[in-house]
């Protein structure tokens, strides 16, 4: 943490008025950012319009029973996605719980001078490289490595703690737990990278002040640094959760695609994204509309999570400002 340049001791002290080029470039850039931000908003609205438009017949036909129904029978035209909604939230929350623990730990480990700087860079890059692995590869890795690795432990837990609903069934292979574990690794780079940025942007002086008051290293980390960067860390969790909700291919391969409502970690289940991936290519006209409805729901859930996250973040940061005043 050698570089702590304060904004006011800038090196370039020779002041000169901005040239016309500077000004016009500035304006052009400003205009461009405006255009791009509006385009993003319009794109989201357009996607909503397209998917929503195609989903309208299905919404009219099935209405709320689509959300509460538990059968998916394309032959009889009976559609319900409650198991998928449940599976999406369950697997994502589980993945988030795992990833937040490890992701934030990694972020602390990589920012609080536990390692020499060059090692920090190496570790940071390795963690971020996880984001570059394609989803299908994660899926295959899950099938060939994760499932065989956790099977003995899972079955031991099942045998001894069968009375706990989470362990009610034995692990046959694909299921909630392997899916969540792989999902957790997939969102780990998101969580750790953003948390790391948040933690390293805590002013160095704050930490020094804590040490000055006699705090130990861990007291400084948990009492000062983490609370001060809580907003950013929470933001990373919301982003990670959003990613987990929409993750498709790895889940289609690992979750078991079984249309059932279950709390058992070892049971096969299904998610909205996997449902779409598996059924979309061959969907008939009616099923296509129904799938669009499901896509709309997935989008609503993701947007909901993000809005909820943003709201909490806002409240948290307001609280923080109050504390530092």
């Amino acid at each position: 943490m050698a570089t702590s340049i304060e904004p006011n001791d800038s090196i370039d002290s020779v002041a000169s008025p901005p040239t016309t080029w500077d000004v016009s470039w500035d304006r052009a850039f400003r205009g461009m950012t405006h255009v791009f931000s509006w385009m993003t908003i319009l794109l989201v609205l357009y996607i909503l319009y397209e998917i929503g438009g195609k989903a309208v017949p299905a919404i009219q036909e099935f209405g709320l029973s689509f959300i509460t129904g538990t059968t998916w029978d394309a032959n009889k035209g009976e559609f319900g996605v409650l198991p998928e909604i449940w599976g999406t939230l369950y697997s994502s929350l589980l993945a988030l719980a795992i990833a937040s623990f490890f992701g934030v730990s990694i972020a602390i480990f990589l920012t609080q001078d536990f390692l020499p700087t060059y090692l920090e860079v190496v570790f940071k890059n390795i963690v971020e490289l996880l984001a570059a692995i394609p989803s299908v590869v994660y899926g295959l890795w899950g099938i060939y490595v994760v499932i065989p690795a956790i099977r003995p432990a899972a079955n031991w837990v099942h045998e001894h703690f069968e009375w706990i609903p989470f362990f009610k069934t034995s692990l046959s292979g694909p299921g909630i737990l392997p899916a969540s574990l792989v999902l957790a690794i997939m969102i780990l780079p998101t969580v750790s990278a953003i948390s790391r940025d948040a933690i390293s942007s805590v002013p160095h002086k704050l930490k020094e002040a804590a040490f000055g008051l006699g705090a130990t290293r861990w007291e400084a980390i948990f009492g000062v640094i983490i609370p001060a960067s809580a907003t950013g860390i929470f933001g990373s969790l919301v982003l990670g959760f959003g990613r987990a909700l929409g993750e498709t291919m790895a889940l289609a391969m690992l979750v078991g695609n079984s249309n059932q409502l279950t709390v058992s970690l070892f049971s096969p289940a299904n998610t909205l994204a996997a449902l779409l991936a598996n059924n979309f290519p061959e969907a008939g006209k009616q099923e296509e509309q129904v799938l669009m409805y499901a896509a709309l729901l997935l989008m609503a859930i993701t947007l909901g999570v993000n809005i909820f996250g943003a709201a909490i973040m806002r409240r948290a940061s307001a609280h923080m400002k109050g504390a530092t005043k």
Partner: protein
Amino acid sequence: MAGLTVCLLFSGCSSRSSDSSGGDAADSVKLTGSGASFPFPLYDRWFKEYSRAHDDVQIDYQAKGSGAGIKDFTNGTVDFGASDAAMTDEEIAEVGQGVQLLPMTAGEVVLAYNLPGVEELKLSRDAYTGIFLGKVTNWTDPLIADANPGAKLPDEDITVVRRADSSGTTFVFTQHLSAISEEWANGPGTGKTVVWPDSDKIVASPKNDGVTATITQTPGAIGYIEYGYAKLTKLAMASLENKAGNFVLPSLESGQAALSNVEMPADLRAWLPDPPGDQAFPIVSYTWLLCYKKYEDPKQAEALKEVVKYCLTDGQKISDEMGYVPLPEDVVAKVTAALDAIQ
């Protein structure tokens, strides 16, 4: 989420923009097709070899699945389609130019299992319908054990692996189960996707390769896949009880035995839900090429007919090594005759 929407948009675009049917270059003819993934390895090889021998014909086949093949074919975005479930009368009625269905090869759907130490497994009709109905749940169940004296069957739950996506393989398999079991016919029934019994021990994987991988990695698993996939990955395959009451292993001979006893009707849509014959493997199906009866470009029709003729003659010779069952002589003759309907 972003990934998903991009993927949706992309698939939307690609299906719309792929209706280029070539023909603008003076000499060369381009044929595009899509559909069944079950015969893909064989089709791919046929088309490649044909294109190599004929510079002026270029064939492009995408294994999207039978349902998608029928959809593309009906929408006219391809020059030919392919499907394991043929086409229904309603589907045929939707195609203005008329449809000529051509059985090209046949394949066996096998039950592959993962039981270390059990090299031979005989499954009676009651046993395997019971397994897929979720009623026979342990490998030591008397229904299985009685037919396999001496086999070291583990006291383990049976994990059933099925297809997660809509699939011709599922269609062939469920059609067979419906034919031999009333309970299956009244329950899940026949279809490219069906509603499987509720069970923690029935898991689904996408595509033939996904099912194969899941079986390989799951001790105590059993699932249905195309013969070629099981042969390629050296998975153990169960002998199944056929209509005559014999236990038959999937093989070229048992597949041919199944085909030999089935009469091919005039519309070339022959179903073999439960073929007769002492040595016939019980789950066998033809797979079809879908052609229009009328093509706008006569050159295309001509090229397509030539390709099919090649597949029916030289092509059949490599069916076996790729894990498919060559068509019987009389079927080849009937299909060749049917080519006249394509203009």
